[in-house]
């Protein structure tokens, strides 16, 4: 049910464009203070309802309803996942179905076959061919108080985008 994996994502989440493994950070990645190389997996048979918080990377393949908050970590909505929640994380990768608003301090990626029905807000947003999305896209710069928001990523938005 709850499976801890070391060194990257579980099988099926490491294809082209997959989240960068911890050993090869993206150029803009900043080191995070929490556990490195650890990923928690919520399996397909798991059904959760409520508030989900954590301080490590998380892959969800089950059903979750409520809120999901991962400070400074990667949230992956797996291909079998059905999420009905507002989500907040450093980065969010959607391969399955997500219904709710998503906020990320770094990046949101909706992969092919991924589906999001909700508003998304992140400095960087990627929507793949074949992805389904319905909602608003707000690519604002992160608030200055956040440690990970010192750099502007993915271009220089005009001041009108800042909040």
């Amino acid at each position, binding site marked *: 049910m709850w499976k801890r994996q070391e060194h990257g994502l579980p099988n099926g989440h490491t294809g082209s464009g997959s989240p960068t493994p911890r050993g090869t950070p993206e150029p803009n990645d900043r080191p995070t203070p929490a556990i490195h190389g650890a990923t928690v997996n919520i399996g397909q048979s798991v*059904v959760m*309802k409520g508030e989900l918080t954590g301080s490590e990377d998380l892959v969800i393949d089950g*059903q979750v*309803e409520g809120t999901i908050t991962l400070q400074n970590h990667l949230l992956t909505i797996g291909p079998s996942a*059905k999420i*009905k929640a507002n989500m907040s994380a450093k980065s969010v990768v959607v391969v399955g*179905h997500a*219904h709710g608003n998503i906020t990320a301090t770094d990046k949101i990626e*909706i992969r*092919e*076959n991924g*589906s999001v*029905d909700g508003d998304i807000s992140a400095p960087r*947003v*990627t*929507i*793949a*061919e*074949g*992805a*389904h*999305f*319905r*909602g*608003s*896209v*707000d*690519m604002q710069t992160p608030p200055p108080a956040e440690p990970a928001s010192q750099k502007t990523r993915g*271009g220089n*938005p*005009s001041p*009108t*985008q800042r909040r």
Partner: protein
Amino acid sequence: MSLFTWSNPTLATPALSTATTIRSKVFPAFVASLVNRAGPVVLDLGPAVGTTVEFFRERCACKVQVEDLFATVEARASDPNREPGSPLPPLTTRQNYAPRSVDGVLCWDLFDYLNPELATQLAGSLSGVLRAGGVLHGRFSTIEHAVDHYTQFGVEDEDLIRCRTYPGTRTHRSARAGREVLKLFPRLEVVELVLLQSQSHEMLLRRP
């Protein structure tokens, strides 16, 4: 056991055709009308396309609202319980937009798939949400025919639109002459109208 009832029945990934790129003479004017506006909001009625979102973010610092009303049209067309000819409820967007809150609307060829009643209702709603000086871009077929596909339009550059078709339920595609489009949008004025070889015309309308 399932926690959820999914409200959107069209989550299946469409099989996209090979892309073709077309050069638009009208689209640059749409972009130009947004670049000098503060915090512009663009309402995209088509399927989400990453390049479109990136383009408007980088070029105009826009906030993009994706509604994908084509998915709603297809869901209705493929509904096995719907009786042919039965009245359809108005198309509704995911969000409620305040009057005069949107700077640009991308209709693509959505109106071709709507009967006159639905088209009039949607056109009235879109005209209402446009700010003064706001613009609406659309393509309107000049011939009636039946189609079994939709077209996904993606903005590649200011004058480059990428088109890819994906399969849909066979449905009737309406034809509208330029004057009929103007009747749909009585509160808007024509900025540009270009007849295309694809037996349609591309129009840019503006709210005065």
